[in-house]
């Protein structure tokens, strides 16, 4: 069951893992970011989204900003002990402030092509036809579990389904090598979540993921 979803926004930041402190974005949306957008609109334990194709509709443009963030994280344990009234650690922004630079994408516009597989957690009543009509209805109404975003919460996604009879056209002609790109995280061992990479390439502005080589 394939779907086509058109997404766009004024900014996007798909952080490269090697440049995640002083954030630098990948040139185009990563497959896992696309999956995140789909899951924000509709997801069910009985289904698993697989992104097939991402069409880049707008030229790739970058911009810079600096943001004030903090350097420490609050652990779940201290949060728990605070819940029980035992007190704990708090983060004072002024003590742990860290200015971090970001290089992000401007005016992004993509069309995501994806399908989903049924998993063994689907119940008897679930069927692909049911999931797809729920998904389509939610897209038409603009419903989502949480607002989908382009890599960072600061960059919300506008979405609608791609109604055009013709398949979407990329912003450029020719081939563009994007280097190694994050495919997704391997969550099979929850204790040790590993990143997976693939060689990304744009052909006429389209990133085809159907045959993406992913080593796991």
């Amino acid at each position, binding site marked *: 069951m394939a779907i086509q979803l058109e997404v766009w926004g004024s900014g996007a930041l798909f952080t*490269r*893992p*090697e*440049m*995640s*402190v*002083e954030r*630098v974005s990948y040139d185009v949306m990563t497959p896992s970011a696309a999956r995140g957008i789909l899951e924000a609109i509709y997801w069910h334990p009985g289904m698993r989204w697989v992104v097939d194709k991402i069409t880049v509709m707008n030229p790739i*443009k*970058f*911009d*810079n*900003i*600096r943001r004030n*963030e*903090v*350097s*420490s*994280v609050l652990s779940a344990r201290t949060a728990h002990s605070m819940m029980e009234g035992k007190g704990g650690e708090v983060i004072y922004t002024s003590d742990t402030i*860290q*200015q*971090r*630079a970001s*290089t992000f994408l401007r005016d992004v516009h993509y069309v995501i092509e994806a399908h989903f597989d049924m998993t063994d957690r689907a119940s008897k009543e679930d069927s692909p036809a049911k999931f797809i009509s729920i998904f389509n209805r939610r897209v038409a109404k603009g419903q989502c579990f949480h607002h989908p975003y382009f890599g960072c919460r600061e960059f919300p996604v506008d979405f609608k389904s791609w109604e055009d009879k013709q398949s979407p056209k990329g912003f450029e002609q020719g081939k563009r090598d994007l*280097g*190694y790109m994050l495919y997704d*995280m391997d969550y099979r061992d929850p204790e*040790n*979540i*590993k*990143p*997976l*990479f*693939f*060689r990304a390439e744009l052909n006429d502005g389209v990133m085809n993921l159907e045959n993406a*080589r992913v*080593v796991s």
Partner: protein
Amino acid sequence: MIENLIHLYDDLDAKHKIPQYGLIPQNVLYGLDIDDSGKILNIRKLGDWSQKRPVHMVSVPARVTRSSGVKANFLCDTPQYLLADDTNARNGREKKAFKAAAELHLRLLSGIDDSTAKAICAFFARSPQVSEAKNLLTADEWKHASTANFVFYHNDRCVMEDERIVHAWLEDFSESGTDGEVLESIVDGSEVQPAAIHPKIKGVWGAQSSGGALISFNKESFNSYGKSQNANAPMSEEQAYKYTAALNYLLADNDHVAHVGDTTIVYWAESGSVEYQDFFSMASDFGGGSSSDGDLEANLGTAINALAAGRVFDVGNFQLNPDEHFYVLGLSPNSARISVRFFLKDTFGAFLQNIVKHYSDLSIQRPIFDKNPRMPLWRLLNQTTNQAIKADVPSVLVGGVLRSVLLGVPYPASLLSNVELRIRSEKDINADKAAIIKAYYLRQPNSECPKEVLQMSINEESENVPYVLGRMFSLYEQIQQAANPGINTTIKDKYFNSASTTPSLIFPILGNLAEKHLRKLGRSEPGRKVNLSKALQRLSLRLGDQYPARLSLPQQGAFQLGYYFETQKHYENKTVKQENSNKQGENNE
């Protein structure tokens, strides 16, 4: 980007321009000559000892980091390790040091069938020869030598020239490494043991002098998925070494590094050829970098045009190819880290094309005394700050402007707003600022600041109301100056800002003033009065029946350009007249 840097490293490595992975340049001042049986023959001094601090760089095996423990280096070390010298040692430490060095060398070299390797093995099989070594130097010399690095010589040849020994070291070096988690490398997808800490990057202005980290995860909030340090961005030790070595190589090359604001810019061609860098530094005029190639400088214009048009250009005996892949990387410091401001890759020709476009967008009629028609980038950026107090250029602006220049896209809006701020507080518009306004609206078309006003010099035909108002304002000022020669404060100081924002409030006042100035001028110079009032009439015919109530920002731009050009025209007439009268004087004589 990391991939491109590693590629550059491999190219430089092939040309022997950069230390190999596992080797490091080190100041080595003494050579230890040994014979086949490992006996010390001589101690030779290396380098130029007439200098106060002699320097003799040798590429030697990578150093171990020593704190308090005893750890030996391979092939090159201090006398404490190589000779068990006790000058700087306590508690028999020198014996342990010699033992550690002997173990290391015997382990790596005993299996090699090579006369030099055998000689070194024999050297370590003997008891330490510290007294023999001391006899070869005076006591004072020894004091200096005891903390310096020694390297082995055999048969009058430095051991580092022995390929088999170096090979043995490199093999051992790349194999060593702690057992740990295996992750997929971010660079090429191969399975690697991630390097925990990457070498530092030196030479970025404003960063710590000991170097900053480009890739580092030194705060808890930087980590993802419970990974610590650089396991967040898995890369092998070798890959980490290569990209940092390549970047450090680029940064150390002062001729091809530019500094703009707080951003340090390096650029390189995919082939690693220095000719592209030379040419780029000249063509871009970003500052920094010097060139001695006078011929090329003279032909710069033709060369740029040829390359920008996609033709190959010969420089001396090197061919510049416009299709060569070219990279421009901007780095700036942020805390102890280094952040990437921008990383651009394109063909060499495309970069040049954009640079040519940048300078042509910026070109504008300049005052006669301005001998530099091309405005370098630093001067452009200085127009956004208060030069009286030498304020810093905002770093975000630098990255944005550079990107616009190199990619040929519209300039950042903050460039215009900063320049407008300066115009407002300085109540003046110079050639540089007029050029920026012109270039900004050329790239960001706006119907309120149309193309007809964005020209190299004055457009006398333009009917654009703000533009005509700007020209009129300049005329009013000229009238005032003609009526009251040598006054310090003119209507510009009082009314320039308000006239450009709310003309309907200010222009009636200016009209009244001009009337009075003209009356006064009529008494002293009636001819000039007629000329000026005619010029004023011609302009007011284009205005319609009323002044606009207020002008938008783009309209203010048109006003400012109108004012600038009209003023330039006035000066131009003046100098032409002066030149003419000078000529007449000559003729009369």
